[in-house]
Structure formats: structure tokens, C-alpha cells
């Protein structure tokens, strides 16, 4: 029975992904002068009109040809201006996505729902069918059997293929979104209902992201159906992604408010203090002021207070969107994290490095903003583009998610997230959270370390009978769940005795050893 369900599921996923992958290449593109007039800023209109004139009315059946033609035209013009040192004439605005979106015609645009159902819908359906098979299998209670025999989960060809696909998708999404206009056409109807606007690449991304968390969240709920902690935690990330990160921001747009994710916190939300965000909030009435106030409260009060009582898990594995994806879609890859001491050393340099970068950048940005760009001029602009490229897109996106099948599901959270760094400092030095160990029961089997997505060598502590207090622990609770001897427990408790360096391995009355 379960094998039949699994096979049907796999078939649906494969077909759905195939349709999803070919959609960008369907349809035709035809650029019209009036589109250019609508899309392009008045100051650029004359130039662009001249550049694109030869292509007006032509029908392109190949999106690569169409997009590269437009891009080459602009690029050629820009190069010429640069050569002449006419810096102010260079066009930095990227019109290609919007132009492509307005120029595309064809079956996807005409039948978005059919394509949505047969690509994303079919994949999600297949995934659900596959997971429901888990119900017919014996209860798992922490078991992770078969993980290292799986091509998908243990860096086999399926894993490599999945990772490569994700990486390509992220690169196209961030830097070549014009190729995805057909996919955005497909989700237009949903975007129109939610925000009253046509879907852009970020709506497409948000939609897919939320769907993945929901579907893979159901997988978590099935696989960990004996574990109340895992179930609640998963429901929590599903809820926060669906409402706070997806629906509410879209509804805000419907009411002409700035897009805002109320659970995102600076410095993860690194644009929070950027001029356009501040201006947006300040000009959005009392709700806008609340956004600003709430965002600052979260930074100065929310993070320290909540982390003091519950550890950083309250955010990282219960609320956060990156954490939400890591804990659902990333769960099959948690064992791929590097547990070596060397990785821990690299981790500390990197994550606190990013935190410092974010703080310096934000500080300068605020100074610049308060002095109305009188002192630093456009220099913060450059910092923003560097941070956006290397940290925001390349690290958090391409590496953060695309590397799931290669380096585990928390690469970004562990090595890069500045908010995780901030939460971690509080967790390490002032919190009631810890993982306690059960006396002398540890058998050093290493299941806990193997399945720690943050690469913490949990066993190192457990076999010494020592509480685990680490800045990076996101409190996912899987170490406690895979432990076959009931040794580990996530707890909030008295601060006293939390970080005992005098572990007790009880049971030996001959001596009392301090490890």
C-alpha cells in the first residue's frame, strides 16, 4: 500500500517539476512601443525608445533570445556612455523584467490556473501523497533509519541534482528574473486576489516558499507524530510563514501600505533602516508608525526578553521564515552539517563577522539618513549593494537553501545570519534555556551529534553529563528525539547551575571525577 502511494507521489512530483521547469520557455514575446512608454521612466524614455525601436512588433518564440536582445541593447549603450565618461547617462534601472512581463503572450498567460495546478499543484499533491504513505508505516519515535542509504538525503545523485536545481533557480530568481515572467503569470490570479497587483518575482518566490513550508510541514507532522514538541514547533513555523510572512504583507499592499513582515527582525531584516523603508513607514500613517515602533521594540526588548526565558529557539525554530524552511524542507538534510571543531571555529568568525558588517552598515545608513545624505553621500548605497549581493542574495539565498543537500539545512543560520548571532550571544550568556542530560545514561552513540543541524557535537557534552549551552543551538529538539536512551531534554529553568563545568556522571561511588 505505502509503496503504491510513494510511487504515485514520486510520479506526480516528477511530472509537476517538469512542467514547472518548461513553463519559462513557453509562449511568445512581442515588444510594443506603448509598453516601453508605460514602463520606462520619462528621463530614459527617449534613449530606450531609440534602442528598442528595431525590435518593436517582432515576435520572439524564445525567451532567451528576447531577453538577451533587450539586455544587449542597453548594455551596448551603457558601455558607450562609460567610454565617453558620461556617467550620468548610464542607465542603472532594470526594465527588462517589467518589459518581458508586459510582452509575454501565450498559453500560460491565458490559462494560468491550469498551469499552476499542473506544475506547482501537481508537485505539492505528489509530495503529500508520498508523505501520507508514512502513516502506513510503523511509528518512528525519533528513528531516522535509511537516511544514509538514501541518494536524495546522503549526497547521492538525487541530492546533487536537487541541490543544483535549487542553486540554478536561486541564481535566476535573484539576478535573471526576466526569465521567470511566465511563472509569475501563472500566479497572477492569486496575487490579484491578495494584493490587487500583478505578481512579480518576489510574489512568486513568497508563494512557492510558503507552499513548500506547508507541504513539508505536513511531512514533519506525520514523521514526528509521536512527538508533541516537534508537532507544535512545526505548526508554529507553518502559521508564521503563512500569515506573517505571506498573507498579511500582501493584504497590506491591498490597502496601499508598505509590504511588511511583522515577525522579521533587524539585522536579519537588513533593509529595515534603509531610507526607502523608513520613508515608507513614516508616510504610512499610524500603522506605518506602529511598524517602526514594533520593529525597534523587537530588537531592543523582544529578542533579549524572549531569549532570556526560552532561548533563541523561540525565534529560530518556532517563528523565523529561514528557520521555517530549514525545519521543514531542510529536515531530510540535517545530518549533513559539519560537526568538526574546525567548522565551529569558522562558524564563529563568519557569523559574528556578518553581524559586525550589518551593524556598521546600518549605523552609517542611519547617520546618513539623519543628516539627509549630507555627509556620506552615496557611499552607503555601495555598502547596501555589497551586503545585498553577498549576504542577502548569495549567502542567505543561493548558499542558504541551494546547499541544503550538500552542507545541511542550516548553513545560513549557522554561518551567516546576523540575527542568529545576536540571539546566540544572549542565549549563551543570559538565558534560562539549556539542554540537560540524564545522569550516566549516555552511550556515546552519536545520534544526537549526527542529527544536529547546527553541527553541535552534542555527544561531547552528553557523555560527560554536562548541560549543553551553546550560542548556536536553535532548540529544534531533534537531538532529544533521536536519542535512544532518553538522555537529552530541552529545558527552561533556573539560571543557577545552568553552565556547570563540574558535570556529574552519577553511578560511580568510587570517585567523583571532574571532567
Amino acid at each position, binding site marked *: 500500500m505505502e509503496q503504491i502511494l510513494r510511487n504515485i507521489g514520486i510520479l506526480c512530483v516528477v511530472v509537476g517539476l517538469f512542467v514547472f521547469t518548461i513553463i519559462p520557455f513557453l509562449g511568445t514575446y512581442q515588444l510594443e512601443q506603448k509598453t516601453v512608454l508605460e514602463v520606462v521612466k520619462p528621463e530614459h524614455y527617449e534613449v530606450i525608445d531609440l534602442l528598442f525601436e528595431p525590435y518593436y512588433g517582432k515576435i520572439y518564440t524564445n525567451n532567451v533570445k528576447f531577453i538577451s536582445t533587450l539586455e544587449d541593447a542597453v548594455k551596448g549603450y551603457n558601455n558607450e556612455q562609460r567610454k565617453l565618461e558620461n556617467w550620468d547617462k548610464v542607465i542603472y534601472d532594470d526594465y527588462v523584467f517589467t518589459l518581458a512581463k508586459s510582452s509575454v503572450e501565450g498559453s500560460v498567460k491565458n490559462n494560468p490556473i491550469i498551469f499552476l495546478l499542473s506544475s506547482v499543484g501537481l508537485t505539492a499533491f505528489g509530495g503529500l501523497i508520498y508523505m501520507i504513505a508514512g502513516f502506513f508505516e510503523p511509528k518512528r519515535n525519533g528513528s531516522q*533509519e535509511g537516511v544514509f542509504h538514501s541518494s536524495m538525503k546522503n549526497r547521492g545523485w538525487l541530492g546533487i541534482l536537487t541541490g543544483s536545481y535549487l542553486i540554478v533557480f536561486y541564481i535566476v530568481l535573484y539576478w535573471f528574473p526576466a526569465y521567470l515572467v511566465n511563472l509569475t503569470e501563472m500566479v497572477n490570479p492569486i496575487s490579484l486576489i491578495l494584493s490587487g497587483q500583478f505578481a512579480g518575482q518576489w510574489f512568486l518566490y513568497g508563494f512557492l516558499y510558503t507552499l513548500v513550508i506547508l507541504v513539508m510541514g505536513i511531512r514533519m507532522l506525520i514523521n514526528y507524530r509521536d512527538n508533541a514538541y516537534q508537532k507544535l514547533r512545526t505548526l508554529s513555523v507553518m502559521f508564521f510563514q503563512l500569515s506573517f510572512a505571506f498573507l498579511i504583507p500582501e493584504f497590506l499592499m491591498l490597502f496601499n501600505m508598505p509590504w511588511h513582515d511583522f515577525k522579521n527582525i533587524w539585522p536579519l531584516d537588513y533593509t529595515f533602516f534603509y531610507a526607502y523603508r523608513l520613508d515608507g513607514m513614516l508616510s504610512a500613517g499610524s500603522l506605518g508608525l506602529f511598524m517602526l515602533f514594533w520593529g525597534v521594540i523587537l530588537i531592543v526588548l523582544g529578542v533579549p526578553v524572549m531569549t532570556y526565558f526560552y532561548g533563541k529557539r523561540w525565534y529560530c525554530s518556532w517563528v523565523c521564515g529561514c528557520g521555517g524552511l530549514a525545519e521543514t524542507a531542510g529536515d531530510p538534510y540535517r545530518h549533513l552539517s559539519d560537526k568538526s571543531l574546525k567548522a565551529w571555529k569558522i562558524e564563529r568568525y563568519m557569523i559574528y563577522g556578518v553581524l559586525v558588517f550589518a551593524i556598521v552598515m546600518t549605523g552609517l545608513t542611519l547617520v546618513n539618513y539623519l543628516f539627509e545624505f549630507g555627509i556620506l553621500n552615496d557611499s552607503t548605497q555601495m555598502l547596501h549593494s555589497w551586503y545585498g549581493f553577498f549576504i542577502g542574495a548569495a549567502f542567505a539565498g543561493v548558499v542558504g537553501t541551494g546547499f541544503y543537500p550538500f552542507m545541511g539545512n542550516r548553513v545560513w543560520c549557522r554561518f551567516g545570519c546576523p540575527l542568529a548571532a545576536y540571539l546566540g550571544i544572549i542565549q549563551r550568556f543570559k538565558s534560562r534555556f539549556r539542554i540537560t542530560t540524564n545522569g550516566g545514561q549516555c552511550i556515546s552513540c552519536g545520534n544526537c551529534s549526527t542529527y544536529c543541524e547546527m553541527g553541535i557535537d552534542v555527544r561531547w557534552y552528553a557523555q560527560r553529563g554536562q548541560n549543553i549551552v551553546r550560542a548556536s543551538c536553535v532548540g529544534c529538539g531533534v537531538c532529544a528525539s533521536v536519542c535512544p536512551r532518553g538522555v537529552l531534554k530541552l529545558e527552561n529553568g533556573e539560571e543557577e547551575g545552568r553552565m556547570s563545568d563540574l558535570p556529574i556522571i552519577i553511578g560511580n561511588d568510587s570517585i567523583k*571525577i571532574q571532567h
Partner: protein
Amino acid sequence: MSSSIKKNDRVVVIGNGIAGITFARNLRKSNSEVSITIISGESQYFFSRPALMYLYMGQMKFENTKPYEDWFWAKNNFQLIHAWVENIDLESKKVICSNGHQENYDFLIVATGSTPRKLRVEGIDLIGVQGFYGLADLDLMEKSTKSISHAVVVGGGLVGIELVEMLLTRKIKVTYLIREAYYFGNVLPEAEAKLLTQLIQSHGVDARLSIEIERLEGDVSGHVVGVHTTNGAFIQCDWVGIAVGVQPNISFLKNSRLETNVGVLVNKYFESNHVNVYAIGDCAEFKEALEIPRGNIEQTWYTGRMHGETLAFSLAKEKTAYSPGVWFNSAKFFTTEYLTYGHVPVMVQEPLRDFYWESSEKDKAFRIVYEGESGRVLGVHSLGWRIKHQFFDRAISEQWTFEKVMRQLHKADFDPEFYKSISKEVVKNYSNGSVLKNKSVKSLRTIFKNWF
């Protein structure tokens, strides 16, 4: 404090299991200069033996079973020799390896662990019949179960059920022969043993109770094709796992003059009959039996660790006798964890009394045994409920009464957050009014305290 190991002494440990490694590490901690050599034929580096089953099940890989990274050994100045020891020359203080290597010692620690106990039945040496203890057994099993469809496992103990579980993950049909009336019936009271037997059966295992193996049958190529049981049945199969316990792995000592019985005979200081030669862990046999249920030979992971740390302390600091505290142990049967503290006998008879609780779904159980007269608690165990070691170690060693333990039972809860509190269930089922009254006041405060 006087240490018997001097700066320039050469300490050689045979065996890199938990006992030998714990000894070596603890010795190194108190003495950074002494030369420590660890010899093992099984593996270059220390790994966790209880994790071997997870390798077969694809839940871990060998790398994950090593508690310390490979650089750890050189950094802490341990010399590791990957070779089998053939003999010991006690006169000239030399360890002789099968590859010709010889190692001189001033102190010798024998920590060679166990080997599967062999059944003396016809056909036991057929191909496809094996025990399960070390890396070699795992490799053999990996190869010999590649294309089989039906396996027989013999032995209703902890390794037996591991084998059953392992085989099931490869979709191999398993017939399980258990000598006792129920699984683990030589350790657990009938109710718990019954519960576990049902659990095993619920996983599709053909468990045959009160049955032993009589002989094995092979084909012309010497490969096992089936087993004959004591009730006259013949079970066709292409693989047989024998898990009827382990015995000290000391056959390499048979030509030495070290005094042995089942294991290397030692006193409570782990001293053998030969000066500066010690034995620890599974291979050591105490001349004087330890308190029930420990006996003369201790074969658990943590006792190996305790032997190691005690001997290291004894040699590096001051001579100390081994004195284990309250007995404890744990295991996991499929999805059900088992934790035990103190002694719970198979049959609870006067003057002992007990209280037993079982969940209605029959997946959780708890038993507490006490002296009827004094009420003093002697032991507890649980199935499917994580209970705290610290709590029961204290309760039993401080001789708490049954009433006192039950009143504070919520402090023993070690299940993850948001789990239904088993201690409440247990106490609810125990119908002593005074216990309940005291508890409710306590729990209100606990709820408040645990709120954050």
C-alpha cells in the same frame, strides 16, 4: 596522594573500547607526561559500539560513531597501534602483536571487551550463521544479508532485538526464537515482558516463545538453510543471528600466566594476579561478586567507563577500590525506551512489594519495588517514559520511602516539553489519598515555576 605511575613509565592499554579509552583519557588528564599506547586490532580509532546497529540501518555512518575526532589522539599524545595482540609476555613485560610488533610496558591494562557467546549446537559454523558484537560482525552481516529473504534470530535479549530491528529495516522477514515465555523475560517481570513481546509482534515479527534452537541445517555448499527447534519444528531460512549473550574476549591470553576464569580475574582494584597488570571492562571478572544485579562480570557501556575512570584515578592519584553506586541501565526496543534504576527483580515476592502502572495503549509502563516493612524503595523501571537518573539515584541511595518517591514523582519526569505528564497518570492510578493531596499543592507551584 601518591601515584603509582611515574613520569617515565610506559602504559599500554589493549583494547580501544569505552573502558580502555576512558582509562587512557583520565590518566592523560592527570598526567601529561606518561607514555600511553593503545593497541586495537578492531579499529584505528575509538568508536561507540552500541551505535553499530545504526550503521546497518542507515541511520549513521561510521564517522558519526567516533566520539572524538581523529586529531584528538595525537594532540593528547596517545600512541595508537592498529594491530591484533597475539600474546603477552609477562616475564619480559611485552605485548606481542600478530604483525610482529612488540610493545614493552611498565603497566598493562587489558580491556579487550567481549565476544559473542557461541551456542554448542550442530551446524553452528555454517555460512550465514553469526553473532553480533564488533565491526567484523557488522561487515559480515552487511555482506551475508545482502540478498536474503528470511532470517532467524536466536536470543531474547538486547542484542537479539537489535538484530531483529536491523533486519526489518532491510525488509527481511524475521523469525525470532525466544527461550523464555516472553521477550526479555529473564530480566523483566511478566507484565512488561508481555508488553514488549506484543510490541515486537506488532512489527510483523514471527516471535516463537519458549523455544530454543536444536540444530542448524546446511546445504552442500555449507550454507545454512534452516533451523530445527526444540519443539520439533523446522524453520527454513537463509541467515541465522545468534544473540545468546557475550563472554570475555580473552582467548589471546590462554598461553600467558595471567589468572583467568571466564574473564581475567581481578580484585576490586582491577589488579590481576600479576603485578602492574590490570583488567577492566567486559573482560574483567571480579573474584568477589558485586551486589545484585551486577554479579562478577559487568558488561554494560557505562560500567566500562566507570572501571576506566576508577583505575585511572587509582593509578594516577591514590589507590581506590571500585565501588559502583545504584545500578542503572537503559535500552530501546523499537520505539520504546527502557530505563531502570536500582534493582527490580523478575518476581516481586514478600517481603518486597511493588506498584505497577501501564498505559491503556499498552505502550508505557512503570514499576516501583520497595520493602514492604520499611517502605524503602529498591528499584524502578519504565518503558516509554523517560525518567531522571539523578532523582532515582538519590531516592534509592538515600533510602527514600515509596510514599516519598510517589509524592515527588513529577520531579522524575524527563519526557520532552509539551508531552502529557506520565507522572500525573501514574500517581492518579495510585489510589492513596494522602499522596494525592500533597501532590496537588506541589504541582500548582510547579506549574507556576515551569511557566517560563
